[in-house]
């Protein structure tokens, strides 16, 4: 049926390749090439890298980044796995609440989490001032401790979600078999259950590692000058004394190297260790003594409470009267009135650009997913790999790449809203592609063939049968794209100009101008805007389907 003709799907393949190459591969390649460029644009072999690795000012950034990301990944894996085990394996009260709360923690963008900890424990923070009246002082929240705290609190839900899904797919018979063969419970967990959930666990760890490596806002807000790769890269690129694109590109190339290495290592591992598990009877809940049950309950609720602190703080503080960074007790809509005066444009920009980007992501994502699932060829495997690249590349790097490519003829896009849209679109394209490909693999191709044999040509079959069946995946892909796009900071901060600031940029500048009240109000709107589509998706599809990513 599928000829090698230049049909509609051939055009989609070409279009997808052009898009990915123009907006992702070419910019990234330019970043790599620029990192090998010296003064007067001459090619230099490794001058920039030599400078990087011989000056402490530069090389400390990669040490800091690797150190923070490794510790954060370890922390998130420990907390996330422990919580998953507690919720899936033991009879704790309020499991739905625990699960929902852990999901909600993913809603606020990380830099807003960082900001919320500053609101509480910063120099002018609510808790610090309260304790100060008693003459007490807490250790500083600024610096690497704060970053680590934010990272773990922000990202452990990734591990929690993936590991609990994996645990729910383990059949009780596996544990029974190991126990009946004389393996004690601890050993059984280590030798029979852990290997089965290991691919999901490492996938969670990878997500945490890549996200923390890429995180720009958190170290900027709470790091107080601690240099990480993204912040130094930003600093080198946007420098009042004249930017240094070559050094910024060198930092960007190192980021690409670290993240793609991590990605490939995990893929290689998971590919070799992935097992097909058929779960007929899920793992049974294990009985607990009252003491242990109480301890475990306290642990689980504490974790979730800490995870909810950022959003709660933001929302509560947005309704407090403020002066600069200082917040007073009381209820006030002052902050909201201010933002609708000062930055209405940023709010509109955010919603319009996010909606456009998600729409484009869905359009191309659905078509590409169909190609990947139904017409797989080497060409499409390459396309898949290129699109997934967006997953691993930090926003700062994408931003720099887009600027370097599109600030000179033939196509000048810097200073326009289009360049923001391109970044949002290309960076979040993997979500609908993933969700829709996974869904298509579950839809029997014979359903489509039945339609064709009944007289409906292939493309109309795609519209009448395939699209309706893919609907849940389209919805969840859109919700995830929306959620991650709306608070995007790391490329927006580079790409915005003048009237095209977004809410995330506005929050960032408000925080740096010590306008905490307006920052909180904007952040609350952002959290609400991220929450509503996810909530609706839940309502339409149910929890399981919405999290099928």
């Amino acid at each position, binding site marked *: *049926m*599928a*000829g090698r003709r230049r049909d509609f799907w051939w055009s989609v393949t070409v279009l997808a390749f052009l898009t990915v190459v123009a907006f992702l591969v070419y910019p990234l390649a330019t970043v790599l090439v620029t990192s090998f460029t010296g003064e007067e644009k001459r090619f230099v072999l490794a001058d920039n890298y030599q400078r990087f690795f011989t000056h402490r000012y530069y090389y400390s950034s990669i040490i800091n980044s690797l150190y923070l990301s490794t510790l954060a990944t370890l922390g998130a894996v420990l907390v996330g796995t422990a919580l998953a085990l507690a919720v899936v394996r033991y009879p704790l009260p309020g499991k739905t609440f625990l699960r929902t709360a852990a999901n909600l923690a993913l809603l606020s963008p990380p830099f807003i989490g960082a900001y919320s900890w500053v609101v509480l424990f910063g120099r002018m923070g609510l808790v610090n001032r309260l304790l100060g009246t008693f003459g007490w002082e807490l250790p500083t929240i600024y610096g690497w401790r704060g970053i680590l705290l934010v990272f773990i609190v922000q990202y452990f839900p990734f591990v929690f979600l993936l590991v609990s899904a994996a645990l729910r797919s383990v059949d009780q018979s596996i544990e029974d078999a190991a126990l009946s063969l004389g393996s004690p419970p601890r050993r059984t967990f280590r030798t029979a259950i852990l290997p089965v959930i290991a691919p999901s666990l490492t996938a969670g760890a990878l997500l945490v590692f890549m996200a923390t490596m890429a995180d720009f806002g958190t170290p900027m807000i709470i790091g107080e000058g601690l240099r990480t790769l993204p912040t130094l890269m930003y600093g080198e690129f946007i420098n009042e004394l004249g930017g240094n694109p070559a050094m910024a590109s060198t930092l960007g190339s190192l980021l690409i190297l670290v993240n793609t290495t991590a990605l490939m290592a995990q893929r290689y591992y998971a590919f070799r260790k992935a097992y097909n598990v058929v779960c007929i009877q899920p793992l049974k809940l294990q009985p607990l003594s009252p003491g242990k049950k109480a301890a475990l309950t306290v642990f689980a609720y504490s974790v979730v409470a800490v995870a909810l602190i950022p959003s709660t703080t933001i929302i509560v503080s947005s309704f407090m009267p403020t002066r600069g960074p200082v917040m007073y007790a009381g209820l006030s809509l002052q902050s909201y009135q201010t933002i609708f005066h000062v930055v209405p444009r940023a709010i509109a920009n955010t919603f319009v650009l996010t909606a456009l980007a998600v729409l484009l992501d869905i359009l191309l994502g659905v078509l590409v997913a169909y190609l990947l699932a139904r017409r797989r060829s080497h060409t499409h495997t390459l396309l898949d790999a290129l699109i997934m690249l967006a997953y691993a590349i930090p926003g700062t790097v994408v931003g720099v790449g887009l600027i370097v490519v599109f600030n000179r003829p033939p196509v000048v896009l810097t200073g326009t809203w289009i360049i923001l849209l391109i970044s949002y679109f290309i960076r979040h394209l993997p979500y609908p592609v993933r969700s829709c490909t996974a869904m298509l693999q579950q839809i*029997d191709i*014979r*359903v489509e*063939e*039945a*339609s*064709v*044999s*009944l*007289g*409906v*040509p*292939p493309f109309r079959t795609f519209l009448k*049968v395939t699209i*309706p*069946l893919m609907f849940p995946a389209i919805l969840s892909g859109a919700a995830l794209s929306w959620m991650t796009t709306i608070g995007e900071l790391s490329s927006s901060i580079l790409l915005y100009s003048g009237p095209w600031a977004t809410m995330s940029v506005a929050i960032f500048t408000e925080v740096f101008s010590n306008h905490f009240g307006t920052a909180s109000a904007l952040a609350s709107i952002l959290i609400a805007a991220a929450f509503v589509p996810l909530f609706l998706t839940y309502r339409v599809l149910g929890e399981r389907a919405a999290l099928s990513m």
Partner: protein
Amino acid sequence: MTRVRAEGIVKRFGDTPAVDGVTLEVQPGELFTLVGPSGCGKTTLLRIIAGLLELDAGTVRFNEDRMDEVPPYLRNIGVVFQNYAIFPHLTVRENIAYGLKARRFPADRIATKVAEAAKLVQLEGLVDRMPAQLSGGQQQRVVLARALVIEPRLLLMDEPLSNLDAKLRIQIRALIRTLQRELRITTIYVTHDQEEALAISDTIAVMDRGRILQVGKPWELYLQPGNRFVADFIGTMNVLQGRVEGSGQGPGRVSVLMDFGERWQVQATGVPGQPVTIGIRPESLQLLPGGNGTEAWNSLQGTITEVVYLGPVVRYQIRVAEEVDVTSEIHNPDFSAIHAVGDRLTLWFAASRAVALPGEPEPA
């Protein structure tokens, strides 16, 4: 009614030929079954006839019309898939109406035809249900109605019963057969189940490794298998080796010295010294010779190694010689027919019941 002619069909996946030069002719109105083990190319061949796969070489004709260049949605065929391929987002009614809507039938015609089709497959009253609310058997009926309602030139069925339990399988099988006969619709049916093939077909083609080995009526394949593979695949066959000694008693018979020492009369040709492979069905091996006086009876002796008593049948495994075992099924056994492991038995069979299987005997 449609006559289907496929000639020289070849389909490769990579370097391996899935269908390797198949030619077949399906008579108008008959139920033609492709049967074979998994991977033999039967489903590939069906999908080529449906137009869901492009062929690498060969032609497909429905009557005089060349079909192999016609896209599947213009072929006007009904396809019933193994796992139903029901549209899960449409009601039963919408599922059945799907092909009619594609053909732009007016709404009232669609309503009438859907009602008729639903009645035909005994689904009245369920037309407003969603597929998820139906049992497997009901889903299969929906798919059958959906394929029949468009009045296709040809009905193609790919293992339509394999997802059903044993009882439903027989019910739906009977329904398919009745409808197919009543509507006189040419049908190509794919199955790996030889019993199903025997039960449902007008004509059977046995496939192996991309080729058709034998085509015939069910009883022809069973009684006169053309080769060792067909003999083994359709039913059970005891296969024994021997050499021709000379002409036998009676026309068309030769005398054969079996490798384990017995001397038999069988229907075969061959020159003295030539090796022959003899096939005997288990139910042909009897405890006592019977028939009229003119029939020649052969015998063999052995020791029972296994007994399976099933009520209407008792099945013996009998060791005739080192590495030579046969199966015998005694139907309607009485007390005298019951023996135990270790007993020695003499078994008899009519010379006309032994089949000479062509092809070199397999090396020991």
